């Protein structure tokens, strides 16, 4: 298992954000967490990244428990897990060119590498995410949303992670650009043997990318299973409500809808 989460508990004053969640992500697998605002999915992701200390339970990356790690050992483990955020403009330093943005993590990952070596690695990364040399000198505001997201993905890949946490990676993008990024993520997973923890509220995106799905509500994982099976035959009423809320089934279905305010 690349990621193994057991009985995870995260409390904030007055609220249990993650309430006894267990899940695992296998090598080369895409596991999707779905749920609405405040369900705890982002807190869970932050805990997996070591940005949030759990109040109970364990997180293990490639067999190594995150708890108790400090300093260099923690940094080494963190290189195994990287994140791609929803809004690429906010995730990239506006004062750095795309080239420098990708070079930055390369310096950290390869402190002994020379300029030429890093340049070669950067070129390889640019190529892998579908950007060309002309993009290297551009600042984020000179790039489109899709191009920025490609830079963010290249940055995440620069330190050689085995697991990417994808936090709503296409929610801020237009439909045509979303398709490009989904195709890219699909290809990177196959060619680089990556594993994904995908966080999304869009069940169409989830179905497209994920092998397995976990549905979160109020800190708990209410249902999990293979994506086609879970989305075709949901067992939990909340999963059914999420599916019923997907638009695109016509006006009659919208009117027949009976989901209640939660």
């Amino acid at each position: 298992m690349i990621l193994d989460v057991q009985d995870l508990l995260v409390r904030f004053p007055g609220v249990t954000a993650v309430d006894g969640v267990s899940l695992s992500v296998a090598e080369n697998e895409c596991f999707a967490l779905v749920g609405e605002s405040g369900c705890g999915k982002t807190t869970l992701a932050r805990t997996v990244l070591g940005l949030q200390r759990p109040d109970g339970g364990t997180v293990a990356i490639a067999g190594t428990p995150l708890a108790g790690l400090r300093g260099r050992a923690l940094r080494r483990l963190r290189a195994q897990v990287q994140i791609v955020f929803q809004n690429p403009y906010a995730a990239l330093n506006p004062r750095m060119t795309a080239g420098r943005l990708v070079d930055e993590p390369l310096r950290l990952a390869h402190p002994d590498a020379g300029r030429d070596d890093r340049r070669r690695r950067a070129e390889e990364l640019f190529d892998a995410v579908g950007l060309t040399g002309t993009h290297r000198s551009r600042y984020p505001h000179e790039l489109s949303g899709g191009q920025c997201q490609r830079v963010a993905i290249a940055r995440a890949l620069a330190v050689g992670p085995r697991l990417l946490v994808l936090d709503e990676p296409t929610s801020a993008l237009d439909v045509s650009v979303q398709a490009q990024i989904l195709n890219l993520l699909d290809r990177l997973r196959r060619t680089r043997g990556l594993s994904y923890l995908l966080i999304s509220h869009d069940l169409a995106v989830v179905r497209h990318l994920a092998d397995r799905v976990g549905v979160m509500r109020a800190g708990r994982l209410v249902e999990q299973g293979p994506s086609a099976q879970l989305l075709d035959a949901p067992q939990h009423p909340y999963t059914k409500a999420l599916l019923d809320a997907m638009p695109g089934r016509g006006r009659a279905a919208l009117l027949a809808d009976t989901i209640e305010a939660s």
Partner: protein
Amino acid sequence: MTELLTVDDLTVEFTRGGAAVRPVRGVSLTVAPGEIVGVVGETGCGKTLTGLSVLGLLPPGARASGSVRLDGREIIGAPPSVLRDLRGRQVAMVFQNPGTAFDPVRTIGAQFDRVIRAHRGGSRGRAREHAERLLRDVELADTGRVLRAYPHQLSGGMLQRAMIALALSCDPRLIIADEATSALDVTVAQQVRRLLLRLQSERGFGVLFVTHNLAEAYDLCDRVYVLYAGQVAETGPTAEVFDAPAHPYTRALLDALPRADRAGTTLTALPGTVPSSVLAVTGCVFANRCPRAEETCEHSPPPPAAVTASRTAACHFADTGGPA
């Protein structure tokens, strides 16, 4: 049929760095009384500015030309007094983010009071009764609590319901909804769509529904206009446009959607981007990304042409033969 809203050859122009930019270029559309009309397209296609022009709310520096007639009255160039008279009573707006559309330092009640008494007059007590009725209509049961609350004390879904209630407070004949569900959680968004549909069928107002979400437009709209680079690429009854798109751009948008039957496949992504200077394009503005483009597309812009009696598409090679 007498149209409620007639937008004719609307162009919106700005000056940026000494050069003219035209985010809306010759858009024409109509909304009949009681009709829900979608304006769909991607970022920068001009859909929001088209909606704002109906309220005379274009940002500073924007120059609008063409014609926007609401119930026969021209909005472009109308003096503020006419616009004031039209807003609220004839046309009202529901914005994307209810959290920023309300004034954060006034209670919801104070904001209802202000709008209702400005447009309808009457006492505070009458305004409050009216506000309570409106809130019950949008399925906000605890009206006292909502009216006492400041915007930050309500959830996004409750605020958007309150926003719809406020928009309905003067019985407008037309509602402009701009990405009205985009900031909401999926189940809440669905509730708001259903609410809008119910209110529309009960009250019979027309809706200009601006959205990037094709599936949402499919569920709600009687007709849709698909915008690309400031122009109408295609228009027609929603089901016909989505089931058998005539314009290659519409087809490309639909092909790019992830769907159950496309899981595990490579999606058909639209290559390239909108030309950086659309005004420099002499032919079809979609030609550089279009799979069907031929030489003629590079040189002559396609005018909107009838596909069927109820549909038009601006394409030299519009698909007229039904589903391909």
